[in-house]
């Protein structure tokens, strides 16, 4: 994958040039095994050497930005990550002059969940991973498996309309031709279900939830930081009891607070240790926001989230007949 190698070198050079003036630059490195990447906080030349931008590097670095308020940092961003950054800028949660964006024109990242399903053995037994141009060669539990990259790309990447960063100080890689966004087939299938089936699905799925709040804490737009109403001591919003209804209440809080703000980076779903398809809710809400307000979060600077403003005559909110 020579293209990627040269892109990586180009990126490293760009970061190297600015490293001194930045508190750190957030990118990715290999994680606990060759199949997993982990966020990398580059502060030195040695750190920089570990940088990877392979499709395994999935984490959204925008999640960390609010933690660096007042400091100047760099971020390596893919298209979807740049949307999170834009939304944070629009909501005045970070300052533009406090982030340097190293943009990657992105061809998509993997879904570990899809890899897991496609491998002959649990990915826990991975021994080696080799990246081909369009495939992954994985040795797992002594067996060799080749996965087509296209087949294990994350859902968000398959139908991504913004693969290239929408805001960046440095742009690396070739820009993509404009693409049409689409929702994954499973989304449409789920939406087509009846209320009873949908309810049963959430009841069952939510019984798996352990309320670890990984979905919340990994979300770049969850900026309440340590003060979420779900875990506050003095709010009556939720019981701390871990039951489907309370777990679902939390998801409703999350999605409600994300109305018109979710940039569909998919981190919540990725982070969920028990594989809850949270994007079903997010995508659906985003669709409603698009339909009613013609708004998509994080695709343009200086846009106000739709719930923070209003129009006296709402063109697309019809008063219902009684």
């Amino acid at each position, binding site marked *: 994958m020579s293209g990627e190698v040269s892109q990586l070198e180009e990126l490293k050079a760009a970061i190297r040039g600015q490293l001194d003036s930045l508190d750190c630059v957030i990118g990715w490195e290999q994680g606990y095994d060759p199949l997993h990447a982990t966020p990398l906080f580059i502060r030195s030349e040695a750190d920089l050497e570990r940088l990877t931008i392979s499709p395994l590097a999935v984490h959204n670095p925008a999640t960390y930005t609010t933690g660096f308020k007042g400091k100047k940092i760099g971020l390596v961003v893919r298209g979807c990550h740049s949307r999170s950054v834009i939304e944070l800028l629009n909501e005045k949660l970070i300052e533009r002059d406090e982030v340097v964006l190293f943009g990657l024109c992105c061809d998509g990242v993997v879904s570990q969940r899809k890899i897991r399903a496609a491998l002959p053995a649990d990915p826990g037994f991975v021994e080696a991973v080799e990246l081909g141009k369009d495939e992954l060669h994985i040795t797992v539990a002594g067996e060799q498996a080749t996965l087509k990259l296209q087949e294990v790309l994350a859902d968000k990447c398959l139908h991504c309309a913004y693969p290239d960063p929408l805001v960046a100080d440095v742009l690396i890689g070739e820009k993509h031709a404009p693409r049409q966004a689409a929702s994954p087939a499973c989304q449409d299938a789920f939406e087509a279900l009846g209320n009873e089936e949908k309810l049963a699905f959430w009841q069952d799925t939510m*019984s798996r939830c352990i309320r670890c709040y990984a979905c919340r804490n990994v979300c770049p737009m969850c*900026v309440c*930081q340590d*003060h979420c*109403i779900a875990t*506050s001591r003095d*709010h009556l*919003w939720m019981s701390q009891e871990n*039951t489907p209804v309370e777990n679902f209440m939390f998801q409703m809080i999350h999605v409600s607070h994300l109305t018109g703000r979710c940039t569909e980076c998919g981190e919540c779903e990725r982070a969920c240790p028990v594989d809850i398809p949270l994007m079903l809710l997010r995508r659906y809400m985003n669709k409603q926001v698009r339909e009613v307000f013609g708004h998509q979060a994080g695709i343009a600077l200086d846009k106000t989230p739709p719930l*923070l403003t209003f129009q006296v005559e709402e063109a697309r909110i019809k008063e219902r007949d009684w």
Partner: protein
Amino acid sequence: MRIGVFICHCGSNIAGTVDCESVVEIAAGFPEVVYATDSMYTCSEPGQEGIITAIHEHNLDGVVVASCSPRMHEPTFRRAVERAGLNRYMFEMANIREHVSWIGKDKAHNTNKAADLVLMAVEKLRRNRPLVAKSFTTVKKVLVIGGGVAGIQAALDCADGGLDVVMVERDQSIGGKMAKLDKTFPTIDCSSCVLGPKMVDIAQHEKISLYACSEVESVSGYVGNFSVTIRRRATYVDWTKCTGCGVCTEKCPSKRSPDPFNEFLGTTTSINIPFPQAIPKKAAINPDTCMKLQKGKCGICAKVCPVGCIDYEQQDELVTVEVGAIVVATGYDLFDWHKYPQYGEGRYPDVITSLQYERLLSASGPTGGHIKRPSDGKEPKNVVFIQCVGSRDRSVDRPYCSGFCCMYTAKQAILTKDHIPDSQSFVFYMDIRAPGKGYDEFTRRAMEEYGAQYVRGRVAMIYPHGDQLIVRGADTLAGTQVEVPADLVVLATGVEASQGAVKLGETLRVVPDQFGFFVESHPKLKPVETNTAGVYLAGACQGPKDIPTSVGQGSAAAAKALGLLSKEQLESDPAVSKVNVNRCVGCQKCIDTCPFGAIKAVTDRMGRLKAEVIETVCQGCGICTVTCPQGAIQLEHFTDNQILAEVNALCPPKMNNVSFE
């Protein structure tokens, strides 16, 4: 907490369909309820005494009364618990009359519902905390925006009442629309003779400062303590020196400057004093037509001015004043009749507005008080008046009645006959609206004594024929179509909100209605108040009004301002939003959504941004509380927890005892 619950029978109003004794029994079992009783009329003197006695005897620190609507008696009971030494916010009401006994037929269901409502009230009360109003001092000065007759009246009344007044007028002179009128109905007395002395009073009153050629730029602060920035437009004349002698206007060679005072019927000089009675009587240069300012050549006015007050370099100036109350009297604009294609859209010069006609009638007008039509200066014989041009017409989005056009049309018909005895007036009208004192008689005089011919119907078309205009309309009473040849057509142009009203409304946080007129606090009981405390309305900015009503409202607004500022200190409602700085992450979303500008960003000692509520400005709507995702800003008395306690009381979460793991 120790809560007492009082169930009111309201005679048989409640007890008739609610088993009050049962409700008492059920309520006694509610958490922290230590005392529950019922009474015949809880709001009566003995009823209230009963509450007070119970508070003392049972050492209550919270009270629930289940009776009528809190919109009815909440203040009553709050005062009662206050008399007993409790904070008035340690009280909740359950509405078991309007919302239960009066609307439900089934006694069992009603009783059940009443008990639920009491439980809700108890659960909320358990989360209440005492709230204390804050006192603050006020600035004894009033800002009057607009120098029309309503503003003039308000300013004079305030000043006579001892308050300092700042009057801001957009135009070069005060006087407003009334100054342009020739005569006024129904007395046919001279408009400027009535208004002139009042204008002079404004200029001479020691407590009034007048800023003409000025506009309100921004307003911050709150009732009693507004800070207002005024933009004084450059007039290119130093008004501290100008004596109003008028030499400059005589010598000005640029004589084709548009004349807004005369409704653009004629032209004036680039440097001018708009009319002889203008207040302040100061000259100003129209920079668009001044040759010196446009091309750098001329400078005659500076040469001839005996006091050397011409200043071509003058810039706009911003002035800040502190006031305690604001009277908005920005008046109205005329409807743009060009929206009606059937009246020729401006193609025919002899179709004019009623206000233009006033200028033709006025001795100080461009024709010296002789009626001459614009096209050829001929004296018209047949004058057709068309009423409701931009009034009562949904097709141009003006469904409302402008109120006084019927009257001034009658006046103008009368004056036409006075000016040209052999003239004939025709009035196309929809209905005659003449509900004031002497008004209907006045319109009758126009018809009967002055021979104005009233045709009930709308005009469909005006078209030229020779040097006349043919006005074709329906005569609905005769059931025919009529065509009237006219020498002059006068449109009774309707009233619409002043153009700057919407923007000014935003600055003042006073809402305009869909037509741009400011909305009063209550259509009947608070006609001059707005929903922003300390801001009052006078005159046509609130809706179409004739002169006496405008003057009356000016006085009313002044009375409100005087009443407000007569108190040494004001108290603010403590049921306002409050920021928990520990939870606030400084995202400022609450600041963006607050309709009152009641939240500001402050920096704490760690240098972090935090929201802060200006308690006296906050009106207690709670928009911010919903905006804040982490619940850091809470509307006191309606906090998330208080509302959730009610929700949970109504729908108790299912206690889940089935283990799933």
